[in-house]
């Protein structure tokens, strides 16, 4: 056990902290909404230039081009959390598609998409879930039929986040209906303005339409959009899901939330008393701090495993479940602490933190469900982590 940073890394950390502090004024504020707001894109470009995001992606694809260094990536994530400066862009394109293309994309695909995606110029949506295929994703039925150099797609996706803003979709389609369900799926990329695609917004609990239904009627897309191979889409999708789950349980993001909550409880008062001076609320805060510490330590352990090229085992499998649950509990405590002010929404002079806690209290519940529900995570922990039997399986007689 050695948690000290060598002089090289300590200097790196100081430099990152300094850069973030000195340039925080360039970052987009809460009012700079819209995925392609110029301030967001400028901030992203700045962060790439400084090597604070897209760090290990080759310069030829618009990244910073550094050698992979897990520790440096971790230091950067920690410094964003510590400083509270807005993080780099992290949509599904950047977090899921880019790593997938780097691993399995053709040279043309890499060339065409990676740089623009990193810069935030190209927004992607993830077309996986369907009305009949949620947790059982491999049951998907959206059909793609070969026609010379194209595929013609018919069917429907649902829960597709940012489909209206997206320029492109990475999509799972059924190309061989006769193969076993995991074997007839293809992973394909196409523009959202292709004729025959209709997007209908779905309003969620937060009151906004963060996700959508997407309908395909004779949508003709070129075969060059296929990633890896036809009928090998399940493997490609699994590569992407790993990245998604890592993103959804990031303990540094959780820690940043926790620090915000402590600050809120120190300044906000009720009956003239600071929230933190209420022993019941303080006890709940400390309960959550212990969990934040535990997830941080668990994250350090996983980082060390990766540095050594070892599998993280159970420590890795529990991150999505525990991390998302903890985020939701942090939001829940903020709402309880705010009490009646915690029910205000979207606008009004008494709204605190711009209504961020109210929004998180809802959206974080969505993240417990999305990206593999809590129950599916438990199946995975039990079967892959503890070696328990898959079901259904008959008892030994």
């Amino acid at each position, binding site marked *: 056990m050695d948690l*000290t940073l060598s002089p090289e890394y300590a200097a790196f950390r100081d430099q990152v902290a300094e850069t973030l502090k000195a340039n925080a004024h360039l970052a987009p504020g809460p009012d700079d909404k819209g995925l392609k707001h110029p301030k967001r894109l400028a901030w992203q470009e700045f962060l790439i230039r400084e090597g604070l995001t897209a760090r290990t992606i080759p310069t030829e694809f618009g990244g910073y081009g550094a050698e992979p260094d897990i520790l440096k990536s971790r230091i950067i994530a920690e410094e964003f959390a510590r400083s509270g400066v807005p993080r780099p862009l992290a949509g599904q394109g950047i977090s899921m598609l880019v790593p997938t293309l780097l691993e399995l994309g053709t040279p043309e695909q890499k060339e065409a998409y990676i740089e623009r995606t990193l810069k935030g110029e190209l927004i992607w949506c993830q077309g996986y879930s369907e009305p009949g295929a949620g947790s059982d994703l491999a049951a998907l039925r959206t059909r793609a039929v070969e026609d010379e150099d194209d595929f013609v797609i018919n069917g429907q996706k649902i829960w597709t986040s940012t489909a209206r803003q997206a320029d492109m979709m990475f999509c799972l389609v059924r190309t061989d209906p006769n193969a076993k369900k995991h074997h007839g799926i293809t992973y394909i990329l196409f523009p959202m303005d292709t004729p025959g695609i209709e997007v209908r917004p779905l309003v969620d609990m937060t009151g906004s339409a963060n996700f959508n239904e997407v309908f395909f009627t004779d949508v003709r897309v070129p075969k060059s959009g296929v990633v890896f191979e036809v009928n090998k889409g399940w493997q490609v999708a699994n590569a992407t899901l790993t990245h998604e789950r890592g993103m959804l349980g990031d303990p540094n993001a959780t820690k940043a939330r926790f620090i915000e909550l402590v600050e809120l409880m120190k300044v906000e008062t009720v009956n003239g008393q600071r929230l933190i001076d209420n022993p019941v609320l303080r006890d709940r805060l400390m309960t959550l701090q212990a969990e934040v*510490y535990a997830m*941080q330590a*668990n994250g350090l352990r996983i980082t060390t495993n990766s*540095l050594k090229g070892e599998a993280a085992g159970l420590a890795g499998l529990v991150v999505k479940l525990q991390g998302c649950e903890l985020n939701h509990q942090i939001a829940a405590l903020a709402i309880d602490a705010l009490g009646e002010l915690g029910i205000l929404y979207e606008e009004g002079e008494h709204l605190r933190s711009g209504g961020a806690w109210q929004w998180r209290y809802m959206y974080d519940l969505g993240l417990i469900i999305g990206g593999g529900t809590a129950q599916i*995570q438990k199946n995975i922990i*039990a079967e892959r982590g503890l070696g328990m039997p898959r079901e259904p*399986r008959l*008892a030994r007689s």
Partner: protein
Amino acid sequence: MEFGLLEDQVMLQETVRRFVAEEVSLDLVRQIAEGEIQVAETLAEKLTALGLDGLLVPEKDGGSGLGVLDAALVQECFGYGIVPARFLSNSVAAYALRDSGSSIMNDITNNDARFGIALNDFLSRRDGSGLSIRDEAVSGASLMAMDVARSTHLLFLANDTVRIGQVGSAEQVKTIDRTREFSEVTITSFEQQFTGAEIEKTFAVACILLAADTLGAAQCMLDKAVAYAGDRQQFGRVIGSFQAVKHLCAEMAAKLEPARALIWHAAHALDVQDDEALAMAFLAKAHMAEVGTFIAKTSTEVHGGMGFTDLVGLHYWYKRIGVNRQIMGAPMALRELAAQQQGLVA
């Protein structure tokens, strides 16, 4: 940066784990729990021969000069096997003595000094409990002192300082957990010149070791639940293939694995005297108590009626975890202490 165990630490744990597996059967623990002194003494001799009691004693004072993390790894193995061992009390005492240069440290290593500890009053002083020093004499009693029987010294708390003394009267109290001994004690004499490490630090080490004990006990209960679920059949299936059962096991693992990392981190933080070390130690014990309590209950449920019987003896782990939760700081008191430590209490 490296967050993990060194090869020596893995080996240390392996050695203790093997000892526990070979020497400390449930049957043996039962005999000790039922008061068979001879069996207890034989085990104590074997534990002494393991040579772990001076683990936290500095090398220059005759010990192994290892850290709180190493001690936690050992204690985890003892928790796993619900071993009746004085290691925890000796280690807390060794830590308190560390900078004193006292020759007692050498005695701990040689088993000439065997410690009991009476630190419970620090966070939770009940009616009738509490020791104080006036005019060079100790008055009062301490409830819930640990490992007093067959000890030679007592590490105790009086007037906010950690002291070493001799037990006057000791009356064993009956607790739910018979794998360890707890007594109400008075003090006849004490070392006037000696004050140990700060009470907060000494207490933090006790917290880490109790948390580690629960970690081990809870891991054992989880392992037993998974094994039982893979064996027991109902409705023509092993019960482990029912999701209700599988998810209970997943929940236990999901809570336990990060808690393990927390205990490693908190123990290490004490070893390197990190600024956050005390808060982390107090929170580690509080958190481990919550996780342990959940696992103690859940594992029992996975075993069905069998879990509730004396036959499989699961209750020994259940009770050990229960005692670890309440003794030397129940979760709520520890969380308040952690809040104070961070300046969050006005």
